[in-house]
């Protein structure tokens, strides 16, 4: 108990490939909450930097690009500077390069502030890497989703196959391992479960099963509150 009032945010964190986006979106639909896809925000910022050919070593340019970005979420679509980039931000190239931005504290601060503004406007399900630890420390319910490395690689490979990308599962596994290492060791808001988060191992579970567990947690929390 922090003494501060809980905000109607369900914070869902976890490593790459744990199923956060899919699960969070469905939980939001079930509970009639808004859905905040913070991962998409970092992807959008990365896509913009790639599109503007900003060198990854030019920190100032990356920060400026993120600040200048006009980002819009509507009807499940993502628009950057007026352009629909919903599919473009999910490519392997964007995925590989997110790490160049999400470790910059100024970028995290800008996007974090935007996330807080959106998340507190109405009941929201927010998914990302530091929702429960940094962005929404007073969230009414915190969940940390995890899954075995092979399971996450399999899911990610299947996702890429659907986008008609050539996929090598071993390469995907290596990439996920690298992202885990980067997420967990960066200085700015490293990936870890909040001490008061409910941990759910999603290995072998269907999306519906994970959604059901989270919804029951939320309803339990609401009854206790």
């Amino acid at each position, binding site marked *: 108990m922090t003494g501060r009032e809980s905000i109607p945010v369900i914070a869902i964190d976890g490593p790459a490939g744990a199923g956060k986006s899919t699960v969070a979106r469905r939980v939001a639909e079930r509970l009639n909450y808004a859905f905040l896809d913070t991962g998409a925000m970092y992807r959008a910022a990365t896509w913009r930097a790639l599109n503007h050919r900003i060198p990854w070593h030019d920190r100032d340019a990356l920060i400026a690009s993120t600040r200048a970005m006009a980002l819009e979420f509507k009807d499940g679509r993502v628009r950057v500077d007026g352009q629909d980039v919903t*599919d473009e931000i999910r490519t392997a190239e964007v995925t590989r390069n997110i790490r160049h931005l999400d470790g910059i504290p100024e970028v995290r601060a800008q996007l974090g502030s935007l996330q807080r503004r959106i998340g507190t406007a109405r009941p929201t399900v927010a998914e990302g890497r530091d929702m429960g630890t940094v962005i929404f420390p007073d969230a009414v319910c915190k969940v940390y989703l995890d899954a075995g490395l*092979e399971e996450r690689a399999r899911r990610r490979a*299947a996702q890429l196959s*659907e986008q008609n990308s050539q996929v090598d599962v071993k390469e995907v596994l290596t990439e996920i391992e690298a992202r885990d290492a980067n997420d967990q060791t960066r200085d700015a808001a490293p990936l870890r479960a909040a001490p008061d988060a409910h941990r759910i191992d999603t290995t*072998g*579970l*269907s*999306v*519906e*099963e994970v959604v059901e567990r989270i919804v029951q947690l939320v309803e339990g929390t609401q009854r206790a509150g």
Partner: protein
Amino acid sequence: MFDSLIKFVREAPPEELAAIEIEEMALVSAWYDSHRDNAEFVAEYADLPEKIEYWLAHSSQVDVQTEGRRLQPLLREVLDRAVSERPPKLHRSELDLLVHAHNLIKRHPDPGRFERLAIFFEREHSAIEAARDGMEPVAGLAGLADFLRIITPEDILQAQKRSVSNFAGLKMPGRGPVFHHKGNVKVMGYVPDDCMLVAEDGSCLVHGFVFGRVAATNDCEVRDNIAGVVVVSLGDIRARNALTTAFVVSKWGQVVLRRTERVKLLFAGRLLHIKEDADGGRYASPEIVVDGHVHGGEFSVSRSMKAERFETAPGSETVIVLRRSITPEDYGGLVDPIATRLLGSIRRVRHQKEALRERIRLAENERRQFATNAIQFMTGGDALLQGLQAIVKQEQQLSLCIRVISALDSVTLAIEEQISASIADMNAADDEEVRDAAALVRELTRELEDAADLSAMDDADGVLAGDIEEVAAILGDLNRAEASRNISTDLLLNLRNRSDEWQQKRGKLIESLERKMVAIEKLLGTSDVRTKNAKLSELKVLARILQAAGKRPPGDVLAARTQSSFVKLMLRQIESRRDRIKQYQEKIEAADAELAKLGERLENEAKIPVPKEFGETEEPPHVTGAFSPGIVICTDRYFVEDTRAPEATTLITGDSGTEIRCYMRSQNRILPRDEALQSS
């Protein structure tokens, strides 16, 4: 013999212990009890009674929602024999198992969960106990392990590592531990990633998830979800859900699941049943039933598909492919050459039966039409004669048209399949189907004889003669292609174009006939005897009229009309169609006899049960449900984006709201059901 089970029970976390079945606990209890004279043993395993008590106290709180529930093959087998054999010939270990299961049920807080066992024991427990007491005890439950091998994930992980290029008859290379057992296998837990479990001549029961690969000759029951590979040869697969990357194949049986999510492939040789929703992925089975909604995915069926509702999903369209057949090629199966040839022959004979049934339907329809024409003339007289003659001629043209379209479609389908087969394997192409289909076109010469008879009636405008010439030209093309062995895509495109032209002709003929019939009906007014005999078929009405006319005095108008050349022509056509129907029925009987022989060979030589598919039912492949807009239904997946694809091979649905609709494959077209049945 039950070392792995005992180890599992002793080491399992409480929630896993509570979730095991009564079969396992009865085995543990009986096994422990069988060593009761060994004090050292009893001391070493002193914790087992505690585990049994824990299970009794907590198992009723566990309620696993899954289709993979049949996880107690040993208890089921022993119980079946105890019920069917009189007197039961069970040995001591089997009786021990039953007695201990009974003891557990008596002490269980929720005995209603074990209904079948409880009913059995109510009748038989005294006899069972008496039989058991009359036998020497056997330590360790010897004999039971022959029926069922119980293992843990650790046993699988410790199995010898091998490299395999094929797995369960599929080209599926892999490397990892391979646990192979001849007989039934039960896994107390999950099947790990990169591991293979093979139950040769047996069934496989998995208490947890499947992440690796499982192959079984008979059934596979999985209590949790499948995220890996499960292949069974002769039996069924049942599990909770099948998830992303799952590859599930029941070669000749059923697959039953709760839900599916973006599966890599789900194949069932007989029936696929999803009890809730199907969300994306690829599916193939002669019959698919989804009790809930479909959200995206590609579904191939050769009999029927049914769902409560079909919807698209973000980034995933829903495509239903209504095919002529579902084959082992759909899951990449390596079927041996004998089986391939026999299956091909079965398919061919079934298609022949299908064509024969269609021709019977056409001939019966024509008989009714001729009877109607005769009735109309006898009712309306000479004033209608010219109009009726025009109608008869157009009906004959239409009938010829339908037969030509049907024959052309059969030929084009056969040629497409031959071309696909030769693309897949240059030496595999079998031109028997093409020859069969070409024979259908040749049979059109019989139709030409009838057409010649009718054209003698009145063909001043030469329309029928023109049609006859066109059919002769099609036959000529086919004969030349066969003679030069040049069955090619050029011929295919030529025949498809002709089929499209005849379709257009058919449409115009139907419109013209409708107008003519309306005119005749107006002239007839209320004097049309058919409306007065609405419950009788046209043929029966005609028979009654002829009978009545026969009793009329000479010179009577009705009697005179029955002797007219028009009515005599109609009666000749009715007779000719009846003879033809009889010949078709004899051919169907011959086809049935051939199918029975082929089926016997398939089961005896290739050990494969005869697949059921279209040809055994009256209805062509169809899909039923409520439809959201944008659902794609097609005869071939690749026609969907092909601008040169034949007309009507793809249909995109509108929004049916809550209304249930049915779309059917008619030859090479997708049509609403009523239209499809009418067109044949």
